[in-house]
C-alpha cells in the first residue's frame, strides 16, 4: 500500500510546529499503525532527516503510552483499541492519514507527537490510592466483595491512563479518567475510608491542571480503548457532592 501522511512536526515545547506531508510505500496491511510509522522513520533516518517522535511502549494495548489523533479520532477509526493495536488493514491503498498529538493545555507537546501527561500522575498523587495499611495479601474470599461491585471496580480499573478521553473531548475534560480512578476504589472496601476526600482532592487537582469541564458529549466513552462508560462520571459527581456537602474534613 501507498499511504500519504500529514504529520504534526514540532521541534520542542516552544516551537510553533506545523503539519508536514510524507509518502510511504510498501506498507503491508499486517503492519500495526506504529510499525508503519517505524517504516516512515527508517526512511527518514536513511535520508538523514529527523525521525517522527511518538510515544509507545508495550505495543500490546495495555500500558497506555501510545496516543495519536488519527484522522481526527483518538486512537484511530477502530473502536475499543489503542493506536498500537490498530492495523493498516483498517486503511486502503492511496489513503491520506492526518496524525496530530493530543491537544490539551495539561498535555503540553514535548516534541512532534509526544505529549507530557504527567498531569494525570499528579491527579492520581492527589488521592488515587489507599493510604491505610491494608496488610499482606489475604486469602481469597477472606474479604467478601459482592460480584457486581468487583465487576464495576474492575471496569473502572481497566483505565490505562492514555488520555484519549481528554484528547477527544470537545471541552478538553479529563472527567472520564478521573472518574475511573475514583470509581475503581469507590467500589472496594479498602477504598471506603478515604472515599470522599479522594473525590474532592482529585477533582481539585484536575481543575488545577487546567482540564475543561464536561458537558456530556460522551465522546470520551466512544474513543476509550478500554470502553470505560460515562456512568463513572455520574458516580464521581455523586461522590464529589457528598464530599463537598457532607464531609467534615
Amino acid at each position, binding site marked *: 500500500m501507498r499511504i500519504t501522511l500529514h504529520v504534526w512536526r514540532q521541534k520542542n515545547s516552544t516551537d510553533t510546529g506545523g503539519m508536514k506531508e510524507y509518502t510511504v510505500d510498501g506498507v503491508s496491511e499486517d503492519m500495526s499503525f506504529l510499525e508503519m510509522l517505524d517504516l516512515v522513520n527508517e526512511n527518514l533516518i536513511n535520508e538523514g532527516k529527523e525521525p517522527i517522535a511518538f510515544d509507545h511502549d508495550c505495543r500490546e494495548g495495555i500500558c497506555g503510552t501510545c496516543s495519536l489523533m488519527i484522522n481526527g479520532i483518538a486512537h484511530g477509526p477502530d473502536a475499543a483499541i489503542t493506536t498500537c493495536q490498530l492495523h493498516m488493514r483498517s486503511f486502503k491503498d492511496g489513503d491520506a492519514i492526518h496524525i496530530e498529538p493530543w491537544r490539551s493545555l495539561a498535555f503540553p507537546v514535548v516534541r512532534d507527537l509526544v505529549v507530557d501527561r504527567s498531569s494525570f500522575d499528579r491527579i492520581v498523587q492527589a488521592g488515587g490510592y489507599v493510604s491505610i495499611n491494608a496488610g499482606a495479601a489475604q486469602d481469597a474470599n477472606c474479604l467478601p466483595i459482592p460480584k457486581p461491585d468487583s465487576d464495576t471496580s474492575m471496569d473502572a480499573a481497566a483505565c490505562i491512563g492514555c488520555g484519549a478521553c481528554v484528547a*477527544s473531548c470537545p471541552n478538553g475534560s479529563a472527567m472520564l479518567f478521573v472518574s475511573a480512578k475514583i470509581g475503581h476504589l469507590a467500589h472496594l472496601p479498602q477504598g471506603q475510608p478515604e472515599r470522599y476526600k479522594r473525590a474532592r482532592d482529585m477533582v481539585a487537582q484536575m481543575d488545577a491542571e*487546567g482540564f475543561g469541564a464536561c458537558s456530556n458529549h460522551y465522546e470520551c466513552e466512544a474513543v476509550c480503548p478500554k470502553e470505560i462508560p460515562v456512568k463513572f462520571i455520574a458516580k464521581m*459527581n455523586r461522590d464529589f457532592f457528598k464530599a463537598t456537602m457532607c464531609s467534615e474534613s
Partner: protein
Amino acid sequence: MSLGTTMKSSIGAKALMAITGIILVLFVIGHMVGNLQVFLGPDALNQYAHTLQSLGPILWIIRLVLLTTLVAHIWSAAVVVRMSVAARPVDYQKRKDLTTGFAARTMLVSGIVVALFIVYHVLHFTTGTIDMAESYGQMLPDGGGHDVYKMVIEGFQHPLTTIVYCLATVVLCLHLSHGISSLMQTLGFRNDSNAARIDKVGPVLAIIILIGNLSMPIAALTGLIK
C-alpha cells in the same frame, strides 16, 4: 470546602447549571401550560392572567427567584465555558465527533439566543415597550384586569413577530433537548439501567414544548384563534 469554592470547581459549576436548569425547565413548562389556555378562549386566559397579577408581592418574589436562577445559570455556564476554552489553547486541524449531536455542540449559541429572546419577550408582552402600543394595557370592560387575550392575538398579527417567536422556540427546544438529559447525568442520576430513557427524555420533552409553544403564535397569525 466552602460553597463558593465548590461552585467554581468544574463539577460544582456544572451542578449549579443543572439545578438552575431544572427550575428554568419547570418554569418553561408552567409558562406554556398557562398560556395554552389561549385556546380555551378570552375568558380563561384573562382569568388566568388576572389571578397571576393579583398575586401582588408573591408575583414579585417569583420574578426575583426566576431572575436570580437565570443569572446563576448564565454565570455557571460562563465558568464552564471559560474552563473548556482555556483547556485547549491549540486546536486540532482535524477532529471528528463520534457520538455528540448538533444540540450539544451548540449549547452556548442556543443559550445566548434564548437569553436575548427572553429580554425581547419581556419587553414585548410584560412591559409592552416594543410594538404593542395599541392593545397593551387595555382593560377589560368588566374590571377583570388587562385584556391579555386581545394583546396576544394582536401581538402575533405581525408575521415578523411570529417568525421571531417561532425561531426562538426552536432554538430553546434545541437547548433543552441536550440540556435536560445532560443535567441528569451531571447530577448523577444516569446509570446503566436508565441511560437510554434519560437520553430520550430531553428530546421528547423538547418536542412537546416545541409543539405547545409553536401552536400559539401560529394559531393567532393564521386566524385559528381570534
